[in-house]
């Protein structure tokens, strides 16, 4: 009887593991595709970084995200969600002040929404499992501080073209980080 129970549990675990691994692979593919698309959309926007060298600023992106070492997929999902939310806020709130192509910006917003929706299911599972430690959540305030510096820079520069151009480059860099973070979904 005990053997039967053990075998049933083992089978259930194996099946659930297979299905979860498949879902993570699908999520990884979606996130990678979306982040690449967002990067390309940002690149299409009118802006010449080479002419805005004086407006450059080090926004101090968190180093633990730049070079993650002991990241789990839960951490990655949490960080990606926070990054996408802040990018969406920056683009949406200051959209009227830009000189960017509206169509490109709208496509960028749509892509961001899709990317966040695909993460929602995974995030719900993570929150239900409460599989996040206090250390994991410490990344979020640092991320918020990073995006706060971006907003302050734009305000300081009165949403100038070069300020937007610098932000555009920084957001492209963000999507490159997100693309790297999706690698942790396959673990």
């Amino acid at each position, binding site marked *: 009887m005990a053997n039967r129970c053990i*075998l049933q549990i083992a089978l259930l675990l194996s099946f659930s593991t297979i299905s979860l691994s498949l879902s993570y692979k699908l999520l990884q593919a979606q996130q990678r595709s979306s982040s690449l698309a967002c990067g390309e959309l940002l690149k299409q926007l009118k802006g010449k970084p080479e002419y805005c060298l004086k407006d450059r600023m080090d926004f101090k992106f968190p180093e633990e995200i730049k070079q993650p070492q002991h990241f789990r997929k839960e951490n990655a999902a949490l960080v990606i969600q926070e990054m996408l939310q802040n990018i969406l806020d920056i683009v949406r709130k200051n959209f009227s002040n830009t000189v960017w192509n509206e169509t490109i910006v709208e496509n960028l917003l749509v892509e961001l929404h899709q990317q966040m929706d695909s993460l929602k299911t995974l995030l719900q599972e993570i929150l239900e499992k409460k599989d996040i430690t206090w250390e994991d959540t410490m990344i979020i305030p640092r991320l918020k501080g990073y995006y706060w510096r971006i907003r302050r820079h734009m305000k300081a520069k009165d949403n100038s073209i070069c300020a937007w151009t610098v932000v555009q480059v920084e957001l492209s860099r963000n999507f490159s980080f997100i693309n790297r973070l999706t690698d942790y979904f396959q673990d």
Partner: protein
Amino acid sequence: MGKGYSRKFLAQKMRCERKERTYQLTKMLLSRQTLAIRLLTLCFTVYVSLALDASHDIPESADENCDFKLAFRKYQLILSWELKNRSIVPTHSTFQYTIMSKKESMKTVENCTNITRSFCDLTNVWQDMHETYIPMVEEFRGETLLVQCLGSITALNLSFEPPDFGIIGFADHINVVVQFPPVAPTIYGEDLHDQASLIIKEHSEDIDKRHEPKISGSFSGNFSYVINNLIPNTNYCISVYFEPRSSRTITKPPLKCVLLQPAQESGSSKSVKIVIVIVIFVSVAISIILTLRQIGYVCLHTEFPKVLIFHNFVVRIFPELPLSEEVNILEVISINKKKKVWGYNYGDESDSEDEAPLRTIAGGYTMHGLPGRLHSQVRTSPASSQASHLGDPADEESKEPERETQPQPQPPAAQGPSPGQKEGTSEPSERTEGLPQDPCPKVDDGNSSGGSGDKMTFNVDLNSVFLRVLHDDEEDSEEAALVLPPPEEVVDLEEDPQEMESSLLVPGGEKLQVLFPNLPPECLWTGDDLSDKSDTSSSDVDDIRDGYIMR
């Protein structure tokens, strides 16, 4: 009146002068406002223009002078540039770069300063793939700066040039060999394996198939990949390229094509494949069933029908071979008995049967038994039978008349139970089976029962025993030709069957020759033979001495 006119005139003149002054003042003020507005407009224009181009400290046309291309070529990160204005022919160039994420000044690259080529190897220089690099190239003629080029490069601009590869076509597969450098290549300071995937694409007519081989470790040395299950005698084209993870820019290489050989697969290899597939299928099926049964999803009967009991399978297919026939030398003891011939007259017998009684009348004994009396004999007590067998011949003779009245038993084959013989068959059925054994005892291998001394008792399977009698005496040819009469005629049926048999079967060969030297060499008994020869032997062959017949 003159004074009044002059006063009016002076008053009007003064008014005019005031108006004129007011007009002039107004005019002057308007002109000044216009000027101010113009100045303000100019200032606004300047302000706006300054606001738009405040940070442009580099000539705006600098980015339009060159085209930059970043490529991973021959496993090196190469930035190349090309002047748009081809009329400008510089003598040398200097490459510098900076990044966008920090306020850093332009950096020069040692190997890319005052170069005559139009590219720079940045494999070990640009180490951050997330960065936006700002390259700057200055083209000189002598000491004169001709052109300054600026650009912005990210990893999205990177194109991976395909690796060198070779293909070898076989009948149904193609071997693709990709040549990597001996040392694992890096890009942006990271392993190429982490930045891009190797893709092998197969083109056949209108079908494209993509293969993504999993390479453990890094891209180093030669890598071989086999594309299986191809159609023989078909043209296939192969392309190999890198698919970057941080870009959608793919540079596809020229195709390499090969016409596969016609199929020459041997039948043995096919059969081996089929056998392997069957074995794998059966093993998987059995394991699944066992697993499900172990879990309890499937409940199998433990009592299988006979057809599914495989431990008897071999026995059923290969039934037990009959044991080898044993040949035992037995001594047949013939008991010569003489029977007194009483003057019975069977008038209803045939003419041929009449001859024997005529011959035997002289001795007073007859060879004829009386068939049909066996039952009465059987019913006699064993004690009396034993006495008659072992006792004095005189007693034996005294009982002979009684036996004479008994009918002669039928041969064994004719002694099957019949309704008319119910009385006789009911009691000594064993005896009817044992009786034919007497003259030619047959040994049953499995049912022989032991005896003591020089006596052996056997239960004999009559279907499997042959009897051969050992004799060399040709003098008794007549007796040798004798076929023993049915034992019913010979033996006192009142005897115990075991004793009766034991009395006839005595181990050893001497007694046989002494007691029954003229036994025929072949003594295969059948019911017909018994019945036939009982008569013929008694009439023609039997040795009749003194009215007694030897049996």
